[in-house]
């Protein structure tokens, strides 16, 4: 059974239909990337998956007892709110100290527990958000443009961390991203969205699909060619996947 699936999902935001007729299924352990132009309903789809947005039609089915880790697009913490990383990770439920430490380790920021959220760099902040999503050892990790505001190496390092997390914890990953080449390289499956599902499949299939080309042109072909080249050898993860 799929971890989470939608059947003919329709989403309405502020009176506007943002998504219609979306039927997708996420399987255990896979990395699925959602691409699409601005306003194509990517974030809305994720928000529906976590339950923050009610379907206007169709349905969402979650596996029983499904644990979801969610990393939002951005989080504006008002400067008037004093909060340490540790305090942030203990919301809304107090966590075991060991669990907090292990989540920070997995997210690659073991030493930040006592720091103020307001003092973190963009990359540190996103990793703390990732750590928060890992607290409940999720079956599925949902990331909404989690690298927005990070530079290219920062984004690449972040996605590398995601791959490590997936490998260690075996959770499925669903993410929205604009960093097409980085993301396509890391994905098992790509879902191209524009009000509906335009096309889906492995990165190669989607990149060759006329619907995808119509949306993104052929500009990303070079990056994808590089991807194919890089991944013709065995997939051992001991080498570094740095962004080109």
């Amino acid at each position, binding site marked *: 059974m799929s971890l989470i699936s939608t059947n003919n999902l329709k989403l309405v935001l502020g009176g506007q239909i943002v998504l219609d007729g979306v039927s997708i299924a996420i399987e255990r352990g896979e990395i699925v990337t959602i691409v699409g132009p601005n306003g194509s309903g990517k974030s809305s789809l994720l928000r529906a998956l976590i339950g923050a947005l009610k379907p206007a039609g169709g349905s969402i089915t979650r596996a029983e007892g499904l644990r979801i880790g969610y990393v939002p697009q951005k989080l504006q913490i008002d400067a*008037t709110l004093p*909060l340490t990383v540790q305090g942030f990770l*203990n*919301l*809304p439920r107090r966590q075991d100290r060991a669990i907090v430490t292990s989540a920070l380790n997995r997210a690659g920021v073991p030493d930040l527990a006592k720091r103020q959220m307001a003092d973190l760099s963009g990359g540190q902040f996103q990793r703390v958000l990732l750590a928060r999503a890992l607290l409940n050892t999720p079956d599925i990790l949902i990331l909404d443009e989690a690298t927005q505001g990070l530079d290219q190496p920062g984004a690449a390092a972040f996605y590398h961390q995601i791959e490590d997390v997936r490998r260690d914890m075996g959770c499925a990953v669903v993410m929205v991203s604009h960093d097409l080449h980085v993301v396509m390289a890391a994905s098992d499956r790509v879902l191209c969205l524009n009000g509906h599902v335009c096309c889906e499949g492995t990165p190669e299939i989607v990149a060759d699909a006329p619907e995808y080309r119509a949306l993104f042109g052929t500009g990303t072909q070079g990056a994808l060619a590089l991807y194919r080249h890089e991944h013709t050898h065995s997939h051992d993860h001991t080498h570094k996947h740095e962004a080109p």
Partner: protein
Amino acid sequence: MLDDFVVRAALAGVGVALAAAPLGCFVVWRRMAYFGDATSHAALLGVALALSLDLPIFGGVLVVALAMALIVSGLTGRTVSTDALLGVLAHGALAIGLVAVSVLPNQRVDLSAYLFGEILAVTKTDLAVIWGGAAVSVALLVWRWQALLSATLSPDLATASGVNPKREQLILTLALALTVAVALKVVGALLIAAMLIIPAAAARPFSRSPETMAIMAAILATVSALAGLAASFVFDTPTGPSIVTVAAILFALSAGLAPLLRR
């Protein structure tokens, strides 16, 4: 002891300070200053309603403040910018309240008592209402503290963790209406929002966690209430505004000290 009007005034001031300050932290964190304005200004309309229907003032204010808080709360949930609309509500409520109180047929109402409070006229019954209301408001915040903080940080993140942000917003709305209703007698409709925001803002530089900020805000608000009361005797000034003046001075001191406290 409660027969002394000064003691009653001091207790009333402290009661309001303890209720308003932690709630004010949320008002500041969520950038809902207008929310406090609109709700507290609506209190005057509640006074008019209570007087015309011959109801207790507290009940009338509570009902109208709650209605206004629910309206504002519903509006702020929308995606469109509501800044101007909130301004209209805040000032419209005040103006309509003033008009409504002045056209009441059977009595001349002492407007300044409702605008600026009359803490020196607090009765034992008032005191019971103030401390009862304050206790409920603080209990609501303590009970929902973790969930309220989560919803304040990010509604979506809260939802993903099983917290319903709409419900938490409703809790805050309730606490706000209750605090406005108990604070009216002490600082008046015009200055309730000040008691929410100023102690919280003054507490910020001394705080490393939300909890310490709420406690610091409560301490600063209590100091403001007592010092303001004392100052109003010494300088023969109106008490409600004197309390807020002390709070504003504390804020200025705190803001001045803030650069020295950083790290």
